[in-house]
């Protein structure tokens, strides 16, 4: 078999890599393997090479085991069904998902279109609520009950919106 990279020399290094849960085979000559950094330059001891390889495998294992704390979906389950379990999965599986999303959407990974209309307002409201609640705590601790009552009413009316 010829080296996949230079297509000149005989491939003597055969590697099976698992990246993002996908198996990839590589067949390289010694020179190209060195250049790609997959193989020991002659002085790198073989145990170092093995260690690197094992670590890589462990990485793939770790990704497959990623589990969403909210819905319990694992990345492996997702790979088998093609469907995610909850919105939070997009963050938990973000790293391995990004490559997949990039391929599915012609190299794009950033949303640039419509956003929910009420979203900005909701965010603002949540910030406002947090600020008011902090102020209320402060007012209570300072025994400023008049201010506390006013803040309490403001919070109640915001929460009702």
């Amino acid at each position, binding site marked *: 078999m010829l080296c996949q990279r230079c297509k000149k020399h005989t491939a003597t290094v055969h590697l099976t890599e698992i990246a993002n849960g996908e198996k990839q085979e590589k067949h390289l000559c010694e020179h190209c393997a060195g250049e790609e950094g997959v193989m020991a330059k002659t002085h790198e001891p073989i145990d170092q090479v093995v260690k690197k390889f094992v670590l890589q495998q462990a990485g793939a294992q770790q990704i497959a085991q990623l589990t969403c704390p909210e819905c319990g979906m694992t990345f492996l389950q997702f790979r088998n069904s093609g469907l995610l379990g909850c919105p939070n999965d*997009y963050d938990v599986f973000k790293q391995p998902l990004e490559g997949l999303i990039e391929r599915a*959407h012609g190299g*794009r990974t950033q949303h640039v279109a419509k956003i929910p209309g009420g979203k900005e307002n909701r965010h603002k409201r949540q910030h406002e609520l947090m600020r008011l609640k902090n102020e209320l705590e402060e007012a209570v601790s300072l025994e400023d009950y008049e201010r506390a009552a006013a803040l309490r009413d403001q919070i109640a009316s915001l929460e009702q919106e």
Partner: protein
Amino acid sequence: MDVMNLSDLAKTRGEWLRGNGPHSDIVISSRVRLARNLAGYPFLTKCSEQQRLDIQDLVVAGVNGTDLAGKYHFVRLDEASTLDRLLLVERQLISRNHAEAEGSRGVAVAADETVTIMVNEEDHLRMQVLLSGLRLKEAWSRINSLDDQLEQRLEFAFHEQFGYLTACPTNVGTGIRVSVMLHLPALRITGEIERVLRAARDMNLAIRGLYGEGTEAMGDFYQVSNQATLGRTEQEIVEEFIDEVVPKITEYEIRARELLADQKRTVLEDKVFRAMGLLKYARTMSSEETMFLLSQVRMGVHMGLLSEVTLETVNDLFLSIQPAHLQMIAGHKLDDEQRSKMRAEFVRKRLTNHQNN
């Protein structure tokens, strides 16, 4: 919630089959669909039955706050008969998956059938506007407005980077699926259809049959839709269809029709009139065969070869001869053999006596 009498549906044509929109000789219908999920709920793979019910209630309440209020029916598919569900599939109002799935799920159907909202399909909401002819801009503007109105009452799962979140990452971002149903009979006769479909796939488009994913291209109907949903605006995706995708493919079909008319007139006429002959005289016909023959008659009408039948009749027949529609019209269940017999009879009557329609 309104109860819908589905057997009444079977007697009507539905907006998208009116066959009178722009470019309707080739573009049968235009559809824009949005996928949305409610924030605070898992996707359907992880939903409990109670959560499915909650989602359904929330969506119905949401729809009642839009301008669809009072002008739609909600059909609970887990309670509907197999025949009713199949009828909705044949009318392009729900997907085959939605018809055959399990658990609480339903569909809101606007009275004129141009708008449907599937609840608890692959995503919590799959809403579509379906119109006859090439009317993608109108379809987008209407579905966008419905989405805006729903967002007043429902909070959709949204991510700063990935946009609207969907159960399958291939729909993430805009959640938009823009599609046109094209009728391409001449390309099949000239043998160019595969080449054209390959070119379309190279433009990163999905090509499907009449009833969506995994269905055959019956009667020379092809659904062409976008695949990428992230990283471009909805308008860009819609405009690409209007400016590039549809003109390119229809141009091929137009040229194939011209070529047949100019250089192979006898072949063309023979196909159209043979189809008409079979439809008028056969005594038993499968839906596949009927679709195939109607497809050639439809082309014949558009090319001015046939004046004894109107386009409305042909368009009507495409729908009426489907299994669920036939059984609804008959008013009772029919087995395969009975259907084939009734189908042939129904078509024969409509074509020999079409002025009485």
